[in-house]
């Protein structure tokens, strides 16, 4: 069943044509990844989905209902939660307060969700009452993902979760993404680390200067000659 659908989405920054007709389908229970180099439009695609910017033409549908004119706070309410680029944790709030903010749309934080996050990220439990700004980069990434999970997402948008992390941490983060998915959350993953992304994802789209140039199963993309050359460094 198609959960999220982007149909021929065009988006602009002023006069700059950033997305030139993006069409993406994300099915229930999948991990779908968007890969591409800097400036290809990956983050813009996520911003457009989460309502931080609106497409000039085209449609975005969640469970068949259009959401392309919806405000960001209402998009969150509908079950699309983003863990934004650059982590953006609330650095003066404690870890727990950050997680509580994540549950903002539901009023109070659900203890089950909190336990789930602490099970996924035991490190956050240890640092519960520490200010988020004092966490290491990896811990902040965990917090950003945990915070997004507190919003009970139907679909979790992850923007560059591996950014600025050491290789061993990256592996950890990606295994947790798989775990989150196995627990029933659909994931749309934007990554520059194409190899890792294509390892965990079911399907992938390759974005280049605002257009989708390739879409296939992750396995086929990993084998694809042009992808190997351009994004896997071979």
């Amino acid at each position, binding site marked *: 069943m198609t959960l999220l659908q982007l149909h021929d989405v065009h988006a602009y920054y002023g006069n700059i044509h950033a997305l030139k007709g993006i069409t993406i389908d994300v099915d229930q229970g999948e991990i779908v990844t968007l890969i591409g180099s800097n400036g290809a439009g990956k983050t813009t695609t996520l911003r457009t989905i989460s309502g931080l910017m609106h497409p000039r033409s085209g449609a975005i549908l969640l469970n068949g209902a259009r959401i392309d004119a919806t405000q960001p706070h209402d998009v969150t*309410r509908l079950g699309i939660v983003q863990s934004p680029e650059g982590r*953006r944790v*609330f650095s*003066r709030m404690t870890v727990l307060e950050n997680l509580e903010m994540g549950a903002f749309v539901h009023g109070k934080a659900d203890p089950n969700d909190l336990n789930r996050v602490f099970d996924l990220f*035991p490190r956050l439990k240890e640092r519960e009452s520490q200010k988020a700004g004092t*966490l290491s980069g990896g811990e902040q990434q965990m917090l950003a993902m945990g915070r997004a999970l507190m919003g009970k997402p139907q679909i979790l948008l992850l923007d560059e979760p591996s950014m600025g992390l050491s290789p061993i941490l990256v592996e950890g983060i990606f295994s947790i993404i798989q775990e989150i998915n196995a627990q029933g959350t659909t994931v749309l993953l934007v990554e520059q680390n194409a190899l890792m992304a294509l390892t965990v994802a079911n399907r992938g789209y390759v974005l280049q200067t605002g257009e989708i140039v390739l879409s296939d199963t992750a396995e086929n993309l990993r084998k694809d000659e042009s992808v190997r050359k351009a994004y896997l460094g071979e």
Partner: protein
Amino acid sequence: MASSMPTAPGELASGSILQRIMSGRQENLLLCLAISVFALYPLVDELFDIGRLGSMGSIMIYVLLAMGLNIVVGYAGLLDLGYAAFFAIGAYTMGLLTSPKSFFIKEGYVPEWLQHFWPALAVSWVVAAIFGVLLGAPTLRLRGDYLAIVTLGFGEIVPNFFLNAEKITNGTLGLNPVGKPSTFTIFGHKFAFAPTDQDNWYWLILAICVLSLFMIRRFYNSRLGRTWQAVREDEIAAASMGVNLVRTKLWAFALGASFAGFAGSLSAAYFQYVHPANFEFIVSITILSMVVLGGIGNIYGVIAGALLIGFFDRILTEELTPPLNSLGDALSIDFLANHNLTQDKFLIFGLALVLTMLLRPEGLFPSARRKAEFHPEEDKISEHEQQQMYDIREMDEPAVGERA
């Protein structure tokens, strides 16, 4: 993976629930103590024949204003340079509803039950809040300097409007007299509010200050208060969490303005006079100085700032002028003999502001969060934050040389 991570400097559980309750109790105890000290001031004033009760009343109105502005500037992080506009709106609401000089009273538009102090006080609270929203709504897209400039304009427009709408507001003549509370009795003490009943006025203003303090504390510790913090820290992250940015900011404007409405209507009744000159730009700046000097974002710091600047403004400059003049006489220096220190108060406030910025930019009694913002090195926060800034900058850079 947990073991591979560098251990961040361990902060003790400063926010543990036990400690929160303990500090909460301590806070309330100190607060009650402070309130009782202020409540006893009229007796001290009488006992030692100080004769400063009237000044203390004005200072308490400043406290009310500073607490209100702190919601906008301190909690929500929106710089408002025209706060006196809401003070004016509160005062004129009280004046227009209760003064016999008011156009609305003369024309019989105001129902009899509304022409009294208490209902008018409530109405001015609401009216100021509504104007807070009216100003807030068009300015929400603006940030920082741009927002400050628009609020500055609003602060100029409102008193000028009251000055020029002569038919309604009596223009430069002002509104006088203004409604005041009728006499009531509590615990056998008769509270009358003639101009000579300074002690009763003082207690009334203090009571409204305390009421406002508890209301503001409630707001700050509520969901709304948490939302203000989130928006101040990171608007995009807050929006991603489902926070409605527009509504959050409008609430800050409305609530901030509403307490200026209280202050305005109280001062109108207290001085029995409403005049546009009482709401000039310098009033906005004075209140802002109190907030900055005391410690943006910490309500107790802000109260301390208001008391301190109020003390300078209403008491110290007046008290120091006679000794200065006699010193001038004794030394036969004309300038000192004739100089009136009250003329210098804005010089002193300006100096205080500059010194605060240089020596203690977070204010005298900062909130823990604000302090962290001004002294990142103490919080071991800067490193990560710089990294974060670096990450973001990297990402914002347009792609150089697309790889095919």
